[in-house]
């Protein structure tokens, strides 16, 4: 599951499971705030088998930003 499309699909499922719905804009939509963003980051590190501290605060703003970060961390930095 290294393509951006795969990662994005999986992300949408995880976010939906976590918050009841998924939107491209996670923060601006009000779906996620900084209190809950850390829980999401930890879950994504587990789900995508990423090393600790893989996400920046600004990565949490959208599905696209998360997709790019995860793709890069999994050795596919060009995925977009």
């Amino acid at each position, binding site marked *: 599951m290294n393509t951006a499309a795969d990662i994005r699909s999986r992300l949408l499922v995880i976010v939906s499971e976590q918050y009841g719905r998924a939107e491209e804009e996670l923060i601006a939509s*009000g779906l996620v705030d900084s209190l809950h963003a850390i829980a999401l980051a930890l879950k994504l590190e587990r789900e995508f088998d990423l090393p600790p501290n893989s*996400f920046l*605060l600004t990565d*949490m703003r959208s599905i696209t930003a998360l997709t790019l970060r995860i793709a890069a961390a999994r050795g596919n930095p060009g995925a977009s």
Partner: protein
Amino acid sequence: MAGIRSIGWWLPDERRSVAQLAMRMQVAPEAFAKIGLLSVAVPGDGDHPSTMGARATHAALNAAGLDIDDLDLLIFAGVTKDWPAPWVAAFGVLHELGATRANGIDVSNRCAGIVDALWLAKVLVESRTHRVVAVCCADRFDHVFSPCVGQASFERVTDAVYAAGAATAIVTADAANRIAAFSSHTNPDLSIHHCMTPIAGGSRRPLDEAAVRDGLHFWHAQMSMRDVDYIAKYSADADRYNYPRLFHRAGIDGVDFVACSPLYVEPQMAVLEELRVADAVQLFTIPRLGHIGPADLLLILGIGVANGFNVGRRIVFSTRTPPYSNALAIVSESQHGIAAAGEGIDLSLWPAPRAAHVNRPEAPFEQPLGGPP
């Protein structure tokens, strides 16, 4: 002994509602729900830390029955300033006030500066270095965040909470209360010292055309999610460290009124409950006014006093910042004797609670993520 004789404030009249903020930043109003934000104070073109600070200091001196010529020292503890270093904001405030003899110094420690400055004022008064000391906090934050409207990002939502206004406390030896104890706790991991600061504008990255083009002179979070998690845990640990020490040093076994100003109330309330001080009377100003930096704590106590809250004999200020947190105990034998007055706040928005201890404004939205803000 030295204590707080009066608190004065000045806030701009204009408020920006959550709906207006959401439209301006192209985010959903629900993005502000967890903070419980209703509106923020918006500065006018002529409102700056020095001008707002002078108005708040004037109000505090008036409330104390003092004149500008009575003032020996003004400690400026705000976060933002009219001009960059080496400009000293205290002298800007004093100039606006028409002061001719008072000394001035700036204390810079983010939002924790108010507690450090009050403790410094107490020490200076008790050592008879100065008789009347004003601790002035004044800020406007609009120029430190990227003005790019419509570029929604993680930082944009919390950036919007930062507002404008000023509050000043007058510290004297004849106050009816005494600033009794202080405790502070530095983050053991200071690698986060640079978070929420500009990237350019200092010696490590001078401000040049490229830096301005890339917006590096604005505040940037510069944090990983582990940093965010670590800072949250540190902040809770700091309260666990500071409160017991404060009680021990002040010789008190509880607190009647707590002034703290978290962006998100729930995590701090959880720690206060753990420390068994959550029953103390509280009120929060961020939902109605936005975050006005270190002035928040003076506004909270000032509004509480002016509105007849039962603030009791044991008042605690506590702050949390990423690198450093502190707390201060203000104790009185009977009445606290603090006079409070100012302009720009509708006090009726914080009615004194009759039964409930905690005075929080009603949440503006259905809470999609759980409990009340």
